[in-house]
């Protein structure tokens, strides 16, 4: 059962993408959801490289490019795990000595950044800016955390090949940020000698393929009815329990 704020995000997704969801629209949705002037999402690779996933408008795109070239700024700081709250760039010229003056020239006066993470998995960060200065309200800040968590799950659903319905299906279904899913991902990571991130992706791909809810697959992993075979790199599902009634 999705909560009211998640339903608001779905509504924005509907309007932006006519039913489908693509990662590129997440910035537009984030900026609109929080009522701010722009948003960027940056991914951080294992090699320490940063790449832009999307930007909601030309200022956001210019800010992101600047950050990646200069190696400093709110999104990059958030990629490294910090929560960034800079309500007035004019009052903090020394925080990012290269980035800040150019960001002000581009029109941004307040910037905020949040890490995108799911447990120990770090994807990158989302940043938001405002043309005027000023703090976020508590509600906007809570919404930024919600967007950050939606983005993490959207990236996993996308990597699992879930087109369109994948993300909405996952967020709208029973299986949310569920500790059983994460425990199961830990088991699969060891079974398949893969990262937790790859385990979470593989579990999603398998749950689409066999049409089980992610949480149902997680329960099966915990009870050892489903497992990942390291030799063949395939899933093994014991018993046909889940096929009953089909």
């Amino acid at each position: 059962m999705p909560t009211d704020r998640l339903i608001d995000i779905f509504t924005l997704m509907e309007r932006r993408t006519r039913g489908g969801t693509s990662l590129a629209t997440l910035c537009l949705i984030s900026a609109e959801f929080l009522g701010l002037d722009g948003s960027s999402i940056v991914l951080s690779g294992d090699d320490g490289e940063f790449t832009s996933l999307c930007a909601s408008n030309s200022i956001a795109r210019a800010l992101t490019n600047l950050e990646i070239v200069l190696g400093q700024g709110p999104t990059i700081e958030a990629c490294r795990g910090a929560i960034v709250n800079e309500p007035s760039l004019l009052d903090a010229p020394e925080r990012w000595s290269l980035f800040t003056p150019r960001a002000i020239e581009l029109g941004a006066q307040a910037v905020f950044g949040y890490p995108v993470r799911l447990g120990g998995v770090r994807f990158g960060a989302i940043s938001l800016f405002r043309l005027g200065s000023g703090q976020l309200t508590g509600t906007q800040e809570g919404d930024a955390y919600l967007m950050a968590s939606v983005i993490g799950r959207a990236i996993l659903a996308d990597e699992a090949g879930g087109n369109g319905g994948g993300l909405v299906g996952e967020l709208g279904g029973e299986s949310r940020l569920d500790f059983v899913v994460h425990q199961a991902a830990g088991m699969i990571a060891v079974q398949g000698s893969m990262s937790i991130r790859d385990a979470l992706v593989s579990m999603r791909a398998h749950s689409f393929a066999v049409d089980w809810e992610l949480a149902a697959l997680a329960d099966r992993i915990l009870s050892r009815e489903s497992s990942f075979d390291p030799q063949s790199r395939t899933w093994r599902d014991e018993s046909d329990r889940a096929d009953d009634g089909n």
Partner: protein
Amino acid sequence: MARESLLIASLVEIADNLVDDYDVIDVLTVLSDRCVQAIDVDAAGVMLVSPEGALQFVASSSESMRVLELFQIQVDEGPCVDCYRDGSAIVNHALSEGDGRWPRFTPRALAQGFRSVHCLPMRLRGRTIGALNLFRTHQGPLAEDDVVVAQGLADVATIAILQHQSSLNATTLNAQLSNALNSRIIIEQAKGMIRQATDCPVDEAFNRLRAHARNHNEGMTELAARIVERVMMPSELDELRGRAAT
């Protein structure tokens, strides 16, 4: 130990923990343990509100699946959800078969041997941020001063979350809630890895993680993150000696 001495010892222990760079999940687990000892209940746990607006489990006096399941169900329905929504305590709710109030929660709680349930809101400046959940295997009312003690411990839990200063610069309540919830996910991911790699029951995986963190004066979340990132192997964790450290 007499109840008063036990309570004072518990409060001193928790206050002592709050001084340093403490691990929020460890402190909330200590607090859940102390609830069981200081009040006449058999299991206790803490649920916190996520940015989605749904409750998520973060700490419990028991890491057995039978108890954790009861927190999992309460993401959707149960005494914690009601307590959170209304911001008021639920005390001495006797569980019985015909009780239609929580159709999923009640039968599971009864099947696990619990007969009554209590829930105290965790409130901060007019906002409810979670709930402390107490379970009893027998019916009969909690004494009035037990309820006062339980609410006091729920208030201490709230302070433990608010006071937590992590390296992430978390200066707002939303940031602290988000960090506490993410810590629990990291721990779940590591638990799954430990369970699979060392072939142990899942509650033992938690206890090993906790005991090792304490033995080496490290935060439990930090240790779990090192396991998730494969900087440390589950087999390198200290063996449990006899009963798990509390």
